[in-house]
């Protein structure tokens, strides 16, 4: 066997800064995503306080536009995306019986790029004002916006977008190449399937965003004219590019949540997923159709009745595979023995909430009716039903479900249920009235509204709901803090899991599986348990396990780009050169230094196996 047996153990902070272990990177994503979720949530609270009565002056008009821009950008790119990557990292390799992702180094790089992109964007609050052109950054409002806010937006998203793209590629390769023997595509757990399709969407959706952001950057930093009609440019270019990315982005967010819901519903109903192959097919179809519908964000832009009709019908078509999923979840529960754990409560709350977001989505697909809905509070209600009621409820289900696997501890169920009920009721109280506000003539992105327009009561109710959601979120964080002081979970399989991640002893060993498992059917662990086996049947003898070395380079590379971004924002080319030099020199070292990783020896693995607790 190899001679590179130097088992580099790092401790404390250095361990976290240099880790390439997918489990630790998952935790890093969870913490960073949680942090940005709080910031985005605070921004939302400030907006709801401003809007609780007409003609309020809690924040100024300019500040409100910064809040709405940062709330949207933060929640989409720096809260929802990393939380999804958190679970993909924590769960996918375990579910397919792999020891890590295909490119552990790239995985760490993806995290640090995301993290510094998010930090860069949020520093704009302290450095002269946040971006104020909306998360959609429509030109020419974005290209002519004063100050550096929009530059922070462009570069923050550019850096974190690169991280997301490499992360997506990494998961595609991992899922294609690193499945355990017997884990065929049609035996993969649904969460892995959704992670796979989402990664594919990232591969095709993020490059357009990158191009669009480059154009916007050139327009702002180097006075290019892509979107300037006075010099032959066209503002519609940005809208198209943004939504060619932006619509698939919605599915990038929602599919892993669907995956988490599928796992939770099946596990807590004690049944296999109803219509597994239909579910897989629906997932792929939603991902595919997700690229065909971007113009439904642009019905009022004036593309003409032909384009509007085609995209209207294409949009309606997405309702069909989505409906298939809903009914399959309902029939998974049908005939089951449903246990209402906190995770299951979130999943059960998700179903009707998401259906409501879905039906307003079909209504929005009607171009002439959309002329009334578009850019009104009706749309605000719709996409919060989809993104909070869909994505976030799904992620909370996933959090309570996988928390024991990630942290070897369970979250308190009572606090979890308080979290659920306050957040769930608060959510509907906040967003249900907003449908009507929109229909009653309230445009979105307004920092205030005049009295005497019959908009006062519903706005007031909406703000009360927002406070309930905030209380729920605080309860969650109390729960998390309490859990850190608790001892390990009573069992490595607390929910009677069906999939491979529950077949691993706790705490999860660094190498995940002492012996790669042999997969003998869908719900691999359930199959073994049903056959009376204690654990998985190994597909290999115990041997040395090859592991990747930790590295500080991903962090340094990301810092280099972070520094270069400041140079671009403040038009200082020396800083750009220094930053890029840091990144390129790190890349050079990464390329020339031979890094063979290390081995965990057979004896160590055997030692671990003796003390296994299941």
């Amino acid at each position, binding site marked *: 066997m190899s001679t590179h047996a130097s088992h580099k153990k790092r401790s404390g902070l250095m361990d976290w800064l240099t880790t390439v272990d997918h489990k630790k990177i998952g935790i890093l994503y969870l913490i960073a995503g949680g942090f940005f979720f709080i910031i985005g949530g605070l921004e939302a609270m400030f907006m709801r306080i401003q809007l609780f009565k007409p003609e309020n002056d809690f924040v100024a008009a300019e500040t409100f536009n910064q809040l709405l821009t940062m709330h949207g950008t933060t929640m989409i790119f720096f809260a929802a995306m990393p939380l999804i990557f958190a679970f993909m990292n924590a769960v996918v390799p375990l579910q397919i019986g792999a020891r890590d992702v295909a490119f552990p180094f790239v995985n760490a790089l993806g995290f640090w790029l995301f993290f510094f992109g998010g930090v860069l964007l949020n520093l704009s609050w302290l450095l002269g004002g946040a971006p104020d052109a909306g998360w959609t950054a429509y030109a020419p409002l974005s290209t002519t916006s004063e100050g550096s806010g929009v530059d922070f937006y462009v570069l923050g998203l550019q850096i974190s977008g690169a991280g997301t793209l490499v992360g997506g590629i990494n998961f595609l390769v991992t899922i294609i190449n690193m499945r355990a023997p017997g884990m065929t595509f049609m035996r993969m757990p649904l969460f892995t399937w959704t992670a796979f399709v989402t990664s594919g969407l990232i591969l095709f959706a993020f490059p357009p965003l990158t191009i669009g952001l480059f154009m916007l950057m050139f327009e702002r930093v180097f006075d290019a004219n892509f979107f300037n009609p006075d010099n032959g440019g066209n503002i519609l270019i940005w809208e198209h590019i943004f939504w060619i990315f932006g619509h698939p982005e919605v599915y990038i967010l929602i599919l892993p949540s669907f995956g988490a819901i599928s796992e939770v519903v099946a596990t807590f109903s004690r049944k296999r997923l109803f219509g597994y192959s239909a579910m897989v097919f629906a997932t792929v179809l939603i991902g595919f159709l997700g690229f065909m519908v971007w113009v439904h964000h642009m019905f*009022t832009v004036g593309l003409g009745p032909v384009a509007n009709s085609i995209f209207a019908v294409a949009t309606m078509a997405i309702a069909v595979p989505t409906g298939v999923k809903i009914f399959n979840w*309902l029939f998974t529960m049908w005939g089951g023995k449903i246990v209402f754990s906190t995770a299951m409560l979130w999943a059960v709350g998700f179903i009707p909430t998401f259906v409501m977001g879905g039906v307003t989505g079909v209504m929005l697909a009607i171009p002439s009716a959309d002329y009334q809905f578009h850019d009104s509070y009706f749309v605000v209600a719709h996409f919060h039903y989809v993104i909070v009621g869909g994505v976030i409820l799904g992620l909370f289900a996933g959090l309570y479900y996988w928390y024991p696997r990630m942290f070897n501890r369970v979250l308190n169920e009572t606090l979890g249920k308080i979290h659920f009920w306050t957040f769930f009721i608060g959510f509907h109280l906040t967003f249900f009235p907003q449908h009507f506000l929109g229909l009653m003539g309230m445009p979105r992105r307004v920092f205030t509204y005049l009295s*005497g327009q019959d908009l006062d009561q519903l706005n007031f109710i909406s703000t009360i709901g927002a406070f309930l959601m905030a209380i729920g979120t605080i309860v969650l964080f109390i729960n998390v803090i309490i859990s850190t002081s608790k001892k390990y979970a009573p069992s490595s399989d607390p929910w009677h899991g069906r999939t491979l991640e529950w077949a691993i002893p706790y705490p999860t060993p660094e190498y995940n599986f002492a012996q790669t498992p042999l997969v003998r059917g869908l719900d691999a662990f359930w199959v073994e348990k049903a056959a009376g086996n204690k654990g998985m049947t190994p597909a290999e003898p115990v041997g040395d396990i090859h592991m990747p070395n930790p590295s500080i380079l991903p962090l340094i590379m990301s810092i280099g780009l972070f520094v270069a971004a400041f140079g671009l924002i403040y038009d200082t080319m020396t800083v750009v050169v220094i930053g890029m030099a840091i990144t390129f020199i790190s890349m050079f070292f990464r390329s020339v230094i031979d890094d063979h990783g290390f081995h965990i020896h057979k004896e160590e693995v055997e030692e671990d196996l003796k003390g296994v607790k299941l």
Partner: protein
Amino acid sequence: MFAMLALLLMGCGDPTLSALLPQGEVADKQYSLMVLSLAIMIFVLLVVFVIYVFVIIKFRKRKGDDTIPEQVEGNHLLEILWTAIPILLLIILAVPTVMQTFDLSAKDKPKKGELALKVTGHQYWWEFEYPKEEIITSQELVLPVNTKVHVELSSADVIHSFWIPSLAGKTDTNPGDGSKNYMWIETGSKEQVYKGKCAELCGASHALMDFKVKVVSKDKYQAWVNSFKKASGKATGNAAEGQKIFEKNCLSCHAVGKEGGNTGPNLTGFGDKQRVAGVLEHNKDNVKKWIKDPQKVKPGNNMPNVPLNDEEVDAVADYLLSLKLQ
């Protein structure tokens, strides 16, 4: 419960602002499709909710019951059903959708009998031009009842969106000659002042970019056109002092009658307006408030602070309020 609430709330809101209380052909048609789609969607919701409630009540785990339920793989007939029925429902919805999308679209030239109107969005006010009548006005659109209006939309700066919820859904106003938009409106039979809104984030005062649509009888409309065309900036009564100050300081941007620039709103007939700057109540104090510090009322707008003392501001306000048509 939500469906009930939905029905309960239908028809709510300010009758001059709510899309749920439509006036005129366009808003009526849009409302009817909204209702059709809502009806289909409430049907879908009911089916899902009934199954859902049944399932979570009937199939909860009972205490002491540790048996493992049957592991059902799926059911082909059910899968076909819940694929085919939604497709049918969507076809029912898609046919009128496509028909209406074409029906409500507008060509780049007005049809015979349609009133031609050009709308230009500015940060943060609206310019209305009647090309045939050769009238340019701002912030308050005057239209005759029961008339089809062909609207050409463009923008002088960033993207805005022209929305009169009671009369018609919105259409964006794009900057650039190549991106002009067209829509049509039918004014309905009611004499009414409707509220209009900007629906696309356009800067700090996006929320304050309100306008009014005055739908009046055909006679009143004709009278308005005639008096507008005759209007001049000549002061009446004791407003002559204000007129002088106005001509010196304001006329380069604001036209009155046929005189003056066009970078700011046309102020012909200002005395008849409903609001100052689209948002403040129409009185002298508010006119003075606006002139003294426009940024305080509408942050980010393009009007500079004009160096006038209190007496001059007072005189200009008197003059502006004296500008009445008829």
